Structure formats: C-alpha cells, structure tokens
C-alpha cells in the first residue's frame, strides 16, 4: 500500500524551510562556501610551472656554459641558482632546496667547439616529486633544441613537423578545466553534508522520534526533507556559475536547461547519499566522518578531476561508476566547454538518474525498517 500524500510532504518541507531560514549556518554552507572556495582555488590552481629552482654547478666557467644557463633561465620555466659549495651539490637535492642539478664539466666549452664530438651536460632531477619532474621532462626537448641551435649555430630539422589544433580550449587555459571540476567536487560534497548533519541532529535531539509518531509516511518525510535542500543546492550552483562565468570567463557553450536538469540530478544524488548516511548512523559525529570519507577524497581523487579515469587500471573504470561526481564531471566539462547536448551526455545522465533512484530507495527502505518495532 503505497500512499503518498503531497500535502504531508509539503508540510514537512515548509517546516524544514522555516528551520533553514532560522539557521544562518546552513545557508552559509550551501550558498557561500562553494562560491568562496571556487574563487579561491580557481585563482590558486595553475598547472603551468614557472621559476622552478635549478642549481647549476659550472666547472667550466666558459662563455658557452654561461650561455647554456641563460637559455635555461630565459625559457621562463627555470630559475638558476649557483651553490656556495659546488662539491656538495647533492645536498641541495637532499635538503629540498632545488628541483634539479645541472652539472657542466670542465671541458664543456672545448668539446663543443671541436667537431665530431658531443658535449654532454648532466641534469639530475628529483624523483621524489613526480609532478614537478614530469613537467620539467616535458620542457627539456624544447630547451635542448634551443640550446643546440644557439650553442652550435646549427639548426636541426625535425623529420616531421607537427601542427596542433586544440579544440574547445585553444589557449590551454587550465582554469577552464579546473573551475567546472572544482564546482563539481564542492557541490557534490556540500549536498552530502547538508542532509547528513541536519537529519542526524534530529535523531540526536529526539525530534525525529516525534516526527515518526505522526501519521507521516517515510517517503513523505524523505521527499519533504530533500526538496528545500534541492532549492538551496541550486542556489549554490547559481553562485558558482556566476563565479565561473564572470570571475574566470569560462565559456558556456551548452544548453542552460540541460545544465540545470543535470545539476538537479547531481544535487539529488548527494542529498540522498547524505540522508542515507544520517539514517544509518543517527549520530552527527559518525555521519560527518562517513560523509567526508565517502565524499571528499573519492571526489577529489577518483572523479577524473585531476587524475583521468582512463589512466587508472581497468577495475577502476567500473568502480568509479558508483561515484556521482565522476558522472557530473563529464557533464559539467561537456556542457561548459564542448557544448555537449543530451545525445552525447545520455550515458552520464542516465547513471545519475539510476543513482538518485537507488540512493533514495535505500534511504526510504532503511527508514521504514527503523519505524517497525
């Protein structure tokens, strides 16, 4: 006997709205926090390295060796320093004072000017920081070409020339892909927190028991609880959208209606997850631990925000499918940058819908079980 009266759900929702309006905390969490954090990190995150510290141990002290260090620093990627004790250059790496050591041997200039010989310069890089070292490694071919041309005056012809065209983000502005990603992580996490804590609090202070003694059915409670937060979550999305468009000039090529629909599904997934957590734990401390564990690190590390899913082992291509942010990440980037339509995004949208239904049903079922003696 499924009896769902919208009027009862509506009164729960009205009560919840009054509750939210009285509590500046929830409004600040939903509207202010994502906005501030998106602006801060949108501004802070920059993947283009500059001024990487590099130590040069120059045993040659010739014109050629000075030219070489100039080429490194003129590239803008590196800042060259000279150690006080050249014999202790390894210590510079051990003490995290530099990202690499460039060693120029005493006969560098001479070898360079004698024909038929190859003048080698050794570069030791710090493998303890992969991200920095891989960035350096990707800059080196360009440096090597520039140095070879300038030091020897010979231009080496590449066998095949490459002309690259970057679609959707021609200038490779990393903010364009960071900001929608960041918005996804934050909106997802805050949706979980919104319901996880508020409902767990009602269990703790006993008002949930009171609610359960009324003739309201579980589904009505769940719907009534979620609806006001959906509105609040959409308000948060609006702020983040404005920050992205006005603050960072991220283009928006897709349809706004589709974007709102997708946001709705994504927020619902987060809210239902939070609700499930709070129904299961009934305790704010546990609820908070579980929401942060299931919400924060997976959405930062496994959603494709920074680390692409395709680069993960095959198992994780399937495993990550249970994470709502993984799907919304594709949707947000697709709609913002590529102008993707419903045809391209049908898979991720369907996945979100399935998750909404599953999480909502699980929360309701669990709730029902609590009601029975």
């Amino acid at each position, binding site marked *: 006997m499924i009896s769902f009266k919208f009027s009862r759900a509506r009164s729960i929702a009205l009560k919840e709205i009054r509750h939210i309006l009285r509590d500046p905390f929830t409004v600040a969490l939903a509207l202010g*926090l994502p906005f501030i*954090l998106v602006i801060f990190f949108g*501004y*802070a*995150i*920059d*993947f*283009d*390295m500059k001024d990487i510290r590099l130590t040069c141990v120059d045993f040659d002290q010739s014109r050629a060796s000075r030219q070489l260090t100039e080429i490194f620093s003129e590239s803008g990627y590196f800042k060259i320093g000279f150690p006080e004790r050249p014999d202790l250059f390894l210590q510079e*790496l*051990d003490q*995290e004072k530099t990202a690499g050591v460039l060693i120029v041997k005493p006969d560098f200039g001479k070898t360079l000017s004698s024909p038929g010989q*190859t003048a080698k*310069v050794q570069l*030791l*890089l710090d*493998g*303890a*920081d992969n*991200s*920095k070292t*891989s*960035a350096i*490694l*990707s800059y*080196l071919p360009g440096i090597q070409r520039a140095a*070879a041309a300038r*030091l020897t005056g010979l231009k080496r012809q*590449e*066998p*095949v*020339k490459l002309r*690259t*065209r*970057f*679609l*959707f*983000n021609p200038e*490779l502005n*990393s903010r*364009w*892909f960071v900001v929608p990603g960041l918005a996804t992580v934050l909106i997802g996490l805050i949706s979980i927190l919104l319901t996880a*804590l508020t409902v767990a609090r009602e269990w703790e202070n006993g008002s949930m028991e009171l609610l359960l003694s009324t003739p309201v059915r579980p589904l009505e409670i769940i719907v009534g609880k979620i609806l006001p937060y959906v509105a609040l979550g959409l308000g948060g999305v609006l702020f983040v959208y404005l920050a992205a468009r006005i603050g960072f000039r991220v283009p928006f090529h897709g349809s706004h209606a589709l974007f709102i629909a997708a946001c709705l599904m994504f927020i619902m997934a987060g809210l239902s997850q939070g609700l499930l957590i709070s129904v299961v734990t009934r305790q*704010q*401390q*546990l609820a*908070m*631990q579980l929401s*942060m*564990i299931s919400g*924060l*690190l997976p959405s*930062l590390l496994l959603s494709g925000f*920074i*680390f*692409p899913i*395709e*680069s*993960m082992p095959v198992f994780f291509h399937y495993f990550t499918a249970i994470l709502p942010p993984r799907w919304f990440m594709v949707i947000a980037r697709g709609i913002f940058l590529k102008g*993707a339509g419903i045809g391209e995004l049908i898979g991720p949208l369907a996945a979100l819908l399935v998750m909404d239904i599953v999480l909502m049903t699980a929360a309701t079922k669990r709730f029902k079980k609590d009601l029975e003696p």
Partner: protein
Amino acid sequence: MNRTLNAFIKKELAQTLRDPRMRVILFVLPMVQMTLFGFAISTEIKRLKLAVFHDPGDRAARQLTERFYSADWFLRVEPEGDDPLRLVRSGRADAALVIPAEGLTRSLARREATVQLILDASNATKARVAESYVSKILATARRGPEPPGPFQLDVRVLYNPTMESSVFLVPGVMSMILCLVTIILTSMSMSKEKERGTFEMIISAPLENWEILLGKTVPFVLIGMLDTVLILLAGTLLFDVPVRGELWKLLLAAFVFVVTTVTIGILISTISKNQQQSMLGSFLFVFPATLMSGIMFPVENMPKTIIVVAYLNPLKYFVTLLRNILLKGGDPWVLWSNIGVLLLMAVATTALSFRRFHQTLN
C-alpha cells in the same frame, strides 16, 4: 600523572571506541582508502583514444601508426568517415592525427612532411601531455637512430628513477587520510559534549583547565598514531615505496603531525558551540589543506598574493617530511626545520585554544 586525569583519558578513549561502527571508520576505512587510491591513481596519463587518418596504401604512415599504439599511451580508435574534427568533437576520440593526402612516404622523401593533430583540450593537462607524446613518437619517425648532435642533455632522475606514481602518491594520500580522520574526530568531540550538556560535568570535575585540554588531546593522538602505523603498513607493503630513512624519524614526524592536527581540531572544538559549527570549521580547514597538499597541483605555482595560505598548511610540511624520509633517508636539516614549523603551529593553536577555553568558562 594524577589519577583523575588518567581516568579522564581512559573515559575519552572508551567513549570514542565504544561504537563498533566508529572503530571501522577509524581503523579499517583508512587502510581501505589507502589501498584503493594507491592502486587507482597514476600521475602518468595513459590510454588516450587516438585515431590516425591516412591513405591505406601509405607504407610509412602505416608503420608510424603502429608505433603510436605499441606503447600504453594511446588506444586505437578506427577513423570513421573522413572528418577527424567530428570524431574529436563527438568525444569518440581524444585525438586525431591527420597524415597529408599525398602520403607520408612521399613527403618524407621531400623532407617537408607536416602532420596535423587535432586534440580535445577540454582537459588542458591531458591535451598538453598528448601533444608531447605525439611529438616524441614523430621525432623517431625517420628510420634508424639519430646520430647525436654536438650538444646533448643527459638527464637522470634520482631517488625514483622509473618515476613510479605510487612512490609519489602514497605520502600525499597518507597525510590526507590522517588529517581527515583526526580533525573530524577531535573537532566534534567537545562540541558534542556541549550539545548534550555533559560538558558542564567535566568542568565541575576536579580537573585543571590544562588537564581537560590534555585529556581531550592524548586519546586522539593515540588513535592517530595507531592509524599512522596501519596506513604506513598498507602504504609500504602493498606498494613499492622504499623506506630509506630510520623508522624513528618517520614515527617522530608522524607523531608531531598528528599532535598538530589534533590541536587544530581542539581549537575548532573550543570555538564552536555545536557540532554543526564544528563541521563547518573542520570542512573549512580540511578541504583547502588536502587540495593544497601538493599532489593535485603544484603549490609553489600559486599567485604570490595568496601563497601565504599554502605555508600555513601543516600537510605541506608533513608531505615534505614523509617524502624526504622515505626516499632520501631524512636529511637532518629538512627533518628538524619542518618538525620545528609543525611544533610551532601546535604550540600556537594550543595557546589559542587555552585562551578561548578560559574565556568560555568565565
């Protein structure tokens, strides 16, 4: 140590660990997460979907194409129709390489071959890496090894020569998990008592203020240290992360870090009136701190105006310590300077909590 304090610490421990669900959250989930993230994440970008458009009769192009798919960098996508742009736009390929219509064999012979690469740059990092992979493979397009030019860079990567991702990620993920577990646990412990009214009872007990704060700190430091050992075991046994430094350095660094995060949690707890406020406080700390731990984006690149925030992040110092101890054996200067900064933070936050605590009581 007096008996009341002793009993107080025991009570706190028992209260926290009583709930079996909490024990799972505190001790099992961190190991599970460490394992999951360690296996999943790789800093190397692999398996990009690439379609190569060329004339089927072009032998040089066919050979080149095979070279693209021989590494793990690219997955083969069959070129459909003759519109590479549409293929990339639709998302069926991340990249499309277009060989000139006259054929690579002929243009190579004329020494002026130009190929076009169309990339999906909606992920800018991925696009940049894809371009560097393609140019690397193209550089070897001419048969036979190149004779070395008059100038050559001889690059060697120290400490982690194969650039193993896990070696880089395990310290970062470890510090994230530790920070998350300890901060949330501590920040809510005191506000929970305030909400339930049991806080008054503690205050009326024959305990000095510092004893109450100590009694709230010690149990969580103990729990944090147990977590450290568990996560360290998972991190080093499952993944090939070397431990080159002495164990005491590792444990000392972890201990100081756990003390710092616990004191930050206590500070949040003394400031907030209820658990919701604690949650907001710990979220405001944990989210930026984990994002700026250095494994997601290079922290030194941050604009000068806000880089101060990065230097206030205890995770930054702990990640530096962990990497240095695990991979470089723990240089004394790095060890003591970073531990010094963490201790300074712990002392400053404790002083603040103490003042705040005093105010609340009066």
